[in-house]
């Protein structure tokens, strides 16, 4: 299946090499974490994930065609 990772402006501000989005091909049953690791993210370098208008857990199984917005880790001020 294919999913699309969309990288927020804030994330792109930290990781300059990122484009606005990246399409990832995954096995059925793969999770959001799998998608991020496949995109060469290191655990801990992403923050909140959003799909549609709701939060997406890192261990949530994805569906074909799903879009995930990736936000950066947050500092608490």
């Amino acid at each position, binding site marked *: 299946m294919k999913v699309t990772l969309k990288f927020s402006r804030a994330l792109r501000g930290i990781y300059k090499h990122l484009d606005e989005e990246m399409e990832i091909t995954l096995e059925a049953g793969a999770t959001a974490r799998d998608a991020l690791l496949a995109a060469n993210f290191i655990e801990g370098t992403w*923050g*909140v994930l959003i799909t549609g208008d709701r939060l997406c857990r890192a261990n949530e199984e994805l569906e074909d065609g799903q879009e995930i917005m990736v936000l950066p880790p947050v500092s*608490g001020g």
Partner: protein
Amino acid sequence: MYGYAGSILRVDLSSGKTWPEPLTEDLVHNYIGGRGFGAYYVYKEVPPGADPYGPDNVLVIASGPFAGLFLPSGAKTSISAKSPATGLYGDSNIGGHLAAELKYSGVDAIVIRGKAEAPSYLFIDDDRVEIRNAEHLWGLGSIKTEEILKEELGDEFQIATVGPAAETGVVFACINHDFGRQAGRCGMGAVMGSKNLKAIAVRGTKGVPVADIDGLKKVSSAAFRELLEDPALKIWQDLGLAQVTTWSNSIGALPTRNFHENFYEDVDGLSGEIMRETIVVRDKACFACPMATGKVCKASFRGKTVLVEGPEYETTALIGSNCALSSIEEVAYANYVCDELGLDTISTGNVVGFAMECFEKGIINKEDIDGIEARFGSLDAFCDLAYKIAAKEGVGELLAQGVAGAAKVWGDESDRIAIHVKGLEWSGYESRGAPSMMLAYMTCDIGAHHNRAWSITHDIEVGRDIIEGKAAKVVEFQHVRPLFDCIGVCRLQWVEMGFPLEYYAKLYPVITGRNDSWEDLLVKCERIWNLTRSFAVREREDFGRKDDWPPRRFYEEPVPDGPVAGSHITEDDLNVLLDEYYEARGWDVNGRPKSETLERLGLKDVAIELRKMGRIS
């Protein structure tokens, strides 16, 4: 002077006199505003060796050129003084609406010295300034005091108050505003309380001159539009800063059981989502802020139901996981107790967590702690200790000195687990697996606080076990992040949403009419950083590298479990970090600014003074 109200309000509580002084070009040019003004006045006017609780200490309440204007979140007031927690320069900042109102009253900063004969509050209504009797407020909680003054004066007044903890002189007493915003760190509330000053009430109706009003409208409109269109905005509005908790836990940085661990097994009960689902009753924003990260929550305990703003991340980390509470409602209730008593939640969570570990490890026994069953996870114990601390009753008198003070009495084994730097308790990021963040805490000018440099993602990106080459990033952050405290604007839009720094660089000239570049402003921040360091060097003959050393726990105990289990940092690593840092700063091997560094930054008078004292060469 564009961007400024144009005056400094002087208050001498001993004589009961108040008077305005014109804001000077030198002060604005060299120190910008906010924390910069605070550093200037504290260095210049607090004599070496002055008692932080004495009349010679000054309390500086200052906004900056961005505060109160049409732009995202020009809401910050910095409050500075010699800190009773550290004996060094201290400051803390506060959001809400105080900064805007202060500027509308025609005041950029209030400089308060002396001590009132009787409990008093400062009343400012444009040019009408009075020191009023506050005996009817003395002893009341922070929130109750604000409620009463709002009733007496009207809702238009913006009010800052202190609670009972400030009246008794708890070293981590805070200043409260807007029913739930705090200048929490460094005991600024204790300084205010020591002056018999219970509150400050401000109303203003004046304008603030701006160099290019059309330019401001244009840049700010674009800035607001960009923020409002950002998909991350809704998440911030929904979850606020509590969303940090699960991330911090996932990377092994969440203080747990007095920083013994950095991974909390019960974190799900403390998450931003659970908070939203279970206890949030409404959202709340500071002046001109679209993020609205404030969350007003309802919490019940011991048959009492309260409304409280919070908890945000720091409170959740230090009161929640660090004291092993397992529900966000418990944390919210403890947050309420601290707010009403006027206790900094970060330091209180540290102090109670420290007491709990000392009790569970047998370092102290039940008699040492007034018979309280001080076990991790007990909200009863948390509340009992908080009330005793605020009243300085029984064991509370000792704990009111902070973990450093308590460890002097409870002995060497407790000193090993007293988590502070320079006497200020550590805030919400356990850093054994993040060397640059560890260095940021070690070298923060007010003690162990994260707000000057937050570099955990740098550690993750570069390598969490790498030591060398990280000091430069910490120095870079220590200039850019405090710049927000100088200009009087909240940095959340930048640090959390990636709002481009270029907007602030564009706003500065249209507001002030000055042609300083962003880089010029960062040099001013470096000047301020060196001035606060010079305050410490002037204050203590033996001040130096040892004062930048972290708690022993962090280099004597590896992380026991979680994502970075086994991580530890050695004393050799710490020395490498400090050597690189001092080199990058132009300081000597003992961490004292070199003469040439001070002179390069326009601090020649400071260099001469420190040389005469034999403190620097």
